[in-house]
């Protein structure tokens, strides 16, 4: 009985890969209340970091393989 009752709200996956309505609600609320400009800066900086990080890995791996 509980199984169906609990699935109605939350289903989880390996190590918390979850559908968690409360967490989703909190994060939506949190993001909505932050300044748009700050968020743009944070996310653009983050994306640039990931791009530079992957380019550096590719660069050093090619360099390493050429030796």
């Amino acid at each position, binding site marked *: 009985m509980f199984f169906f009752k609990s699935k109605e709200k939350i289903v989880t996956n390996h190590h918390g890969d979850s559908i968690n309505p409360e967490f989703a609600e909190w994060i939506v609320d949190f993001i909505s209340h932050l300044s748009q400009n700050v968020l743009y800066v944070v996310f653009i900086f983050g994306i640039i970091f*990931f791009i530079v990080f992957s380019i550096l890995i590719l660069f050093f791996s090619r360099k390493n393989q050429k030796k």
Partner: protein
Amino acid sequence: MTLIKISKIYYGWLIVGALFLSSAIGVGTRQGFGVFVDTWGEDWEVNVSTISLAAAIGWLVNGLAAPILGQMADKYGPKRVLVFCTFVVSVGSILVASSFNVFTLSIYYGFLIAFATGTGGPIGILLSKWFKKRRGVAMGAVMAGGSIGSLFFVPLLTFITINFSWQLAWIMVGFFGLVLVLPLSIFVLKDKPDEILQSVESQSNNNETKVEDGPLWVDKWSNAYNSKPMWQLSIGYFVCGITTASISVHFIKWAISENISPYEAAFSFSILSAVNGISVIASGYFSDKFERKLILGMVYFVRGLAFLALILLTGKIALWTFAIVGGMSWLATVPLTTALTSEFYGYKKLGSLLGLINMSHQIGGAIAVLIFGMIYDYYGNYDLGLWVGVIALIIASLASFSIKEKQFSSRFYKPTEN
């Protein structure tokens, strides 16, 4: 000067970097699944439980995929499997953007993405072959990618969904996969060090060139079950599944029963992820210095203390004690169990063995979610369930401490010379 120093970096660390990024994007975006549920519910005029079906299918498929992908990695090599999985996850994410009902979502997310993310086996093989002395740190760093990725990608996906559309969020995930992760998987990953004429020992400063071997190394995966360590590791991982799944599902409900707001509980859970990102690397580092079984036993013990805090303490003190203490042990079991399995049983069937151990984790999780719920329904609180967690964690801790690592692990094995 600095550039020259960096270019001399051990190639295995570049592989760790590639897998870290892959883990950050893969795990980070899956953790954000819940963010889309309300939007989908409104767009498709369905309730949460109907959308949950896609995730429930994903959970089962992910559990079953682990041994299959592990076996494929044993046969075809981990790189091919990881490249294939990266491609499937990226394309699957773009396809999710084209979902127009729960059925299409279940196919793209529940089958395609969930199947292709069961890659613990191939990653374990790859890192085991590239790292010997710093295996724990390498595996910990890749796992930490998931925690750090969650901290960045969940807010990013939320931001895109709020300001643009949920479709754009999933297209971006797929785009990241195809443009950043896929090239790294193709060009950086190498199945073993001799592919680029590098020795696995070159990561260490000494000139040790011992070929890795162990008394329990197997050619058939079933032979591993004839020895104790396989059962000791599986028992531990089964308990790991019980304790992580039960908390993931019931933590917020427990908080509500303690008169804590769901928002604060959700926030404390994100702090748990952040603490976990640091602790998973630290546990890997210490496991390279000491016997890994000691760190694994300690991790289960610390998680037991976190469970005990939920029983003995009350309200917000219990909540935040659990977030900090629990966070110290959350994902730390994964690199330790993977490293120990590779050192006990070798590489030939490592993918299959890691897949099977992972299945024991998933089975434990499924049982726990059900039992915790039944206990709450019957008693109106989680105390009995939490006590079961404490006892199970003590058993897991004792099972880990009792592993005869010095006798069976390739780290300590010294073949008798004739």
